[in-house]
């Protein structure tokens, strides 16, 4: 960018001019803020105001625009200029709306406003317009791992949009579990009953499309690179290998049925006539519409009992604690096979879960077909003679009952075929390094029985996609089901969350979209959700780096690798631009063009610091822009009052807060520092997963700094807040102001 030229524009609208001396704000901008141009306008956001700014950009060479008016969240359509940086001093929601309109308050309110002008100008000096790195080209090819219904759907849907697909399946044929099915639960119109799974049709469609390249008997030996430039090594069973370059990845590795041998109390493993749902499905497929014959003696089954929630929805050791979602409709389907062949079928359930319109319609179809549904609690399944005796408590009749069946089907759950949780693996590695035998044993137990790596990611943070819960690789966000902790890698189907076939196909279609989007974004250097479109990426000054590895360890997205000399390798297409690496860096060599140690550090230093005897303390608030800052805006909109001594700086994520900001703030005389971020821990609401948690951890270590400075530790506090804390945040601020009143002013005023 050419020479820096700041234009500061002070809006007089929305009551700003009535409450503040805007002339003085102009001189603060030009004198203290070093703005080359400072102008006032009655309504800066109207066409005339915007044109005035554009004229200065075009005619005067202004390349750093400072808008002094409303919040950065307001009037974004108006204040959108190409090729220049933009800073916003929030005098409306952040000053006049949170301060009383009294003579007494006028002076401190004006001081607050002037500081925000200084801060915005200070930020402007250090901002640059980000440009993409050009590290990735446009690669419209995706890899799908898993050739079951989910994977085949992802492949077909991506191909239909014009993208090439590399489809990797470890078995010798496509189709997965669905290929073993006789029929499926329909995706629409549940009243029609079971329908053809049409797996062959899908396989045929894939085989006839030249844009889909199928690799059977193949696994992924190594995945390196980043969205837009993933390099994958494929290994076949026969020992040969090949390479492929892909822009994004869909992992659709499905599930295995829970092992019924773990359920002897329900007859699991005791008799060939006690099977799981997949076992029964294969018998139905073999019967192909004729009477189903039972495995023990080939007798045509006249009475089948389906036991729902077998080994699931249960906290018992070894059981699955979750509901697998599909088993109710699957049992109804299979019970309908039995009814169609003239037999009797009973479904023993706890809650019958057939949600939605299609689900409920399918349940109704089962009822109309004459399937018996009983709310019952099975106590035992015993094999005696030619029968399987199911003892249960009939919860409707409130009595013990027995059903003698030809066969029993246990509706066991889905175990996701995810790879090992990378964080557990890293913990294990570190525990072994420290010879912590107890921890090693605990971690080994947690990892036991898991599956081998699926993607073999060549990432600093492990080989696979992190688990959320119970081995599922689901997103933690309700609003963002495809939120991924490994950018450009999306999981779909039962590996992500327990689900039926219709949902898996829907899920795979969505995942294919996200993979396509990742290819397109990578080519343009754009960030993925939640900072969609951001072109900035972390840059680092190698000379200053001490190879401490904190950035590579703390990145919540595993974006940063290490080179042979242990310097960070950023892989910007994997980066989500949260700045956690910047917050982690003890030598402050990491920065973004539009967000850096300086853009925030210079703001807090730009504040005019009254002396120790002025009785005007200064409190710094570093507020997460995702939740805390909007809450502060809404506090303004609802005119909640808070202290005039506070100066708020929005941050990308609390994880980006570098402790130097705290040290600088204390050294420059701030009396208190407050960090406001999102909820951390298991139920985290932090949009960058670990940011808030990292900030809390780092701040727990700030006590040393405080004691070195001989300052009370209460002066620095970290808060978990949410976007709805519209009344609570002002209260927290005011409590802090009161606390500073009690413990006294900082001695570090100059």
């Amino acid at each position: 960018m050419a020479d820096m030229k700041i234009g500061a524009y002070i809006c007089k609208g929305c009551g700003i001019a009535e409450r503040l001396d805007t002339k003085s704000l102009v001189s603060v901008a030009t004198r203290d803020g070093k703005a080359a141009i400072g102008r006032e306008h009655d309504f800066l956001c109207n066409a005339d105001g915007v044109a005035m700014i554009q004229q200065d950009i075009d005619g005067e060479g202004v390349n750093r625009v400072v808008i002094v008016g409303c919040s950065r969240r307001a009037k974004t359509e108006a204040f959108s200029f190409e090729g220049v940086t933009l800073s916003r001093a929030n005098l409306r929601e952040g000053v006049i709306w949170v301060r009383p309109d009294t003579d007494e308050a006028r002076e401190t309110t004006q001081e607050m406003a002037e500081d925000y002008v200084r801060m915005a100008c200070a930020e402007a000096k250090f901002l640059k317009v980000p440009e993409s790195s050009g590290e990735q080209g446009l690669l419209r090819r995706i890899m799908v791992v898993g050739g079951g219904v989910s994977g085949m759907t992802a492949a077909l849907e991506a191909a239909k949009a014009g993208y090439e697909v590399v489809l990797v399946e470890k078995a010798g044929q496509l189709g997965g579990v669905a290929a073993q099915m006789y029929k499926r639960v329909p995706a629409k119109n549940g009243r029609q009953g079971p329908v053809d799974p049409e797996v062959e049709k899908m396989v045929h469609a894939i085989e006839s499309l030249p844009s889909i390249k199928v690799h059977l008997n193949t696994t992924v030996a190594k995945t390196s690179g980043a969205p837009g430039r993933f390099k994958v090594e494929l290994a076949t069973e026969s020992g040969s290998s090949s390479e492929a370059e892909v822009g994004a990845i869909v992992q659709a590795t499905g599930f295995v049925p829970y092992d019924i041998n773990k359920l002897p109390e329900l007859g699991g493993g005791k008799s060939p006539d006690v099977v799981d749902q997949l076992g029964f499905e294969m018998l139905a497929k073999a019967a192909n519409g004729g009477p189903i014959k039972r495995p023990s003696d080939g007798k045509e089954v006249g009475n089948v009992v389906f036991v729902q929630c077998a080994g699931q929805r249960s906290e018992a050791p070894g059981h699955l604690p979750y509901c697998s979602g599909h088993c109710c409709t699957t049992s109804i389907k299979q019970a309908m096979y039995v009814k169609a062949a003239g037999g009797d079928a009973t479904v023993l359930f706890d809650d019958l879960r057939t949600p939605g319109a299609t689900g409920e319609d399918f349940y109704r179809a089962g009822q109309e077909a004459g399937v018996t549904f009983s709310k019952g609690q099975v106590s035992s399944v015993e094999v005696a003679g030619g029968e399987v005796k199911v003892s249960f408590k009939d919860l409707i009749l409130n009595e013990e009952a027995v059903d003698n069946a030809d066969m029993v089907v246990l509706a066991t759950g889905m175990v996701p075929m995810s790879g090992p949780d990378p964080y557990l693996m890293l913990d294990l590695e570190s525990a072994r390094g420290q010879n912590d035998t107890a921890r090693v044993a605990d971690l080994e137990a947690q990892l036991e029985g898991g599956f081998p790596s699926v993607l073999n990611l060549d990432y600093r943070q492990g080989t696979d996609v992190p688990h959320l819960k119970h081995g599922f690789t689901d997103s933690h966000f309700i609003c963002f089901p495809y939120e991924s902790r490994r950018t450009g890698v999306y999981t779909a189907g039962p590996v992500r969350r327990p689900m039926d076939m219709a949902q898996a196909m829907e899920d795979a279609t969505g995942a294919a979209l996200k993979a396509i989007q990742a290819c397109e974004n990578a080519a343009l250097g754009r960030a993925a959700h939640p900072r969609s479109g951001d072109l900035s990426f972390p840059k680092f000054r190698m000379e200053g780096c001490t190879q401490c590895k904190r950035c590579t360890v703390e990145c919540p997205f595993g974006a940063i690798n290490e080179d042979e000399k242990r310097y960070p390798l950023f892989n910007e297409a994997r980066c989500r631009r949260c700045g956690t690496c910047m917050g982690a860096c003890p030598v402050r060599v990491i920065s973004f063009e539009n967000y850096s140690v300086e853009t925030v550090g210079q703001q807090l230093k730009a504040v005019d610091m009254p002396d120790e005897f002025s009785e005007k303390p200064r409190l710094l608030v570093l507020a997460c822009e995702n939740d805390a800052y909007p809450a502060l805006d809404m506090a303004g909109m609802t005119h909640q009052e808070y202290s005039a001594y506070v100066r708020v700086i929005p941050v990308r994520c609390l994880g980006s807060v570098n402790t130097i900001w705290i040290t600088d703030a204390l050294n420059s005389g701030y009396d208190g520092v407050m960090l406001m971020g999102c909820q951390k821990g298991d139920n985290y609401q932090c949009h960058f997963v670990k940011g808030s948690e990292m900030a809390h951890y780092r701040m727990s270590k700030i006590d040393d700094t405080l004691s070195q400075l001989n300052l009370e530790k209460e002066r620095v506090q970290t808060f978990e807040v949410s976007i709805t804390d519209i009344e609570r945040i002002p209260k927290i601020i005011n409590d802090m102001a009161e606390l500073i009143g009690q413990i006294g002013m900082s001695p570090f005023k100059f």
Partner: protein
Amino acid sequence: MSEVIATNQTILVVGGGISGLTAALEAAECGKQVILLEKSPTVGGRVAQLYKYFPKLCFPTCGLEIQYRRLKANKNIRLLTLAEVTQVTGSEGDYDVTVALSPRYVTENCTACGDCEKAVAAEFDDEHNYGLKQRKGAYLPSMMAYPQRYVIDPRIIGTADAEAAKGACKAGAVDLDMQAQSLNLKVGAIIWATGWTPYDAAKIQPYGYDRFANVITNVEFERMLDPFGPTGGKIVRPSDGQAPSNIAFIQCAGSRDRNHLLHCSRICCMATLKQTNYVRENLGDAAKSTVYYIDIRAIDRIDDFHRKVKADANVSFTKSKVANIAENKANGNLVLHGVDTEGYNRYANEHDLVVLAVGMESTVPAGVFPEGFKINEHNFIELDPANGAIYGAGCSSDALDVNRAAQNATASALRAIQVINRVAGQEG
């Protein structure tokens, strides 16, 4: 209003709730041109009216904030509010859409300063709070409303209030001469995401929603928890403003019922479990919750939330479809009659507040779509070749929770993109 540019490579998304927002953003972030239409003055839809989401108990506005930021940052999306589709003709890759635009009477110059609101006297039922609260005739639909722009209620047009609003606006943003407009758009694919409306509880005659003050719906209950809502964040009985101590939640109120909605609305079980949590949070051990249910459909990995609620000593479950409700005139309490099917015992249980877990009714309109368009018997748009490139998304496709609606909307975005890419390929 600046010109709306649409071609047969444009995707039209109808409905600005969580599904429409998601579909529009996901498509636009793949580089596609999108027009997003919303009938009301603000996007956000039903989720903006929720206090918390299940099972995480996080706040919906948190996700909306991110979606709005994506929307503000994306130049591929053109958002039109107060816009309703009246007709669609044509076929895949080549649709003609007629859109009726209602006047907002406030221009883009609005700064949302609130001066017009202060100047206006007339008050109306606040839609954001299901009419449990009043709002002014000049209003911002909610604190999170986007576009962040005021609206003048058409009912004050021609009154002194309208002139007062105009007079108060220093930004010159009030335009009382704004007229309804009709717009014709040519688009290649359509994602229909108009969502749902709570089933009209008054139609469930035996439950007395229209007769008994202390019978409310689950969506109304949700609004009570908002600190800026009708009760200031307190759970109270409408009849006397007192905190209830013995609350009944009635599941499948209007769902899974031949006389009402045949389908299961999917969300109501989890919504009730969540709401028992609100009771625990707000009233502690001073209040008990009883859930009357047929099946608790806390499907898949969120079943642990169900188990946690079951372990709460203040929450009990009765497997029963409540037959009818009578009011105890002396205290405004409600007596629920029915049969507990576990053991077949009759009951007449008195509660001091009843929350009806009303179902989702799809709002897919009739008479708008091209001939031969298929809408199923539950008024949902299923994936069907007969529907060309018009795709139902979210609760226009089935009764879905927020997570599944967003998932489904993402899938719909790809279906639309497939069509657009085909059109682009043919046109070169």
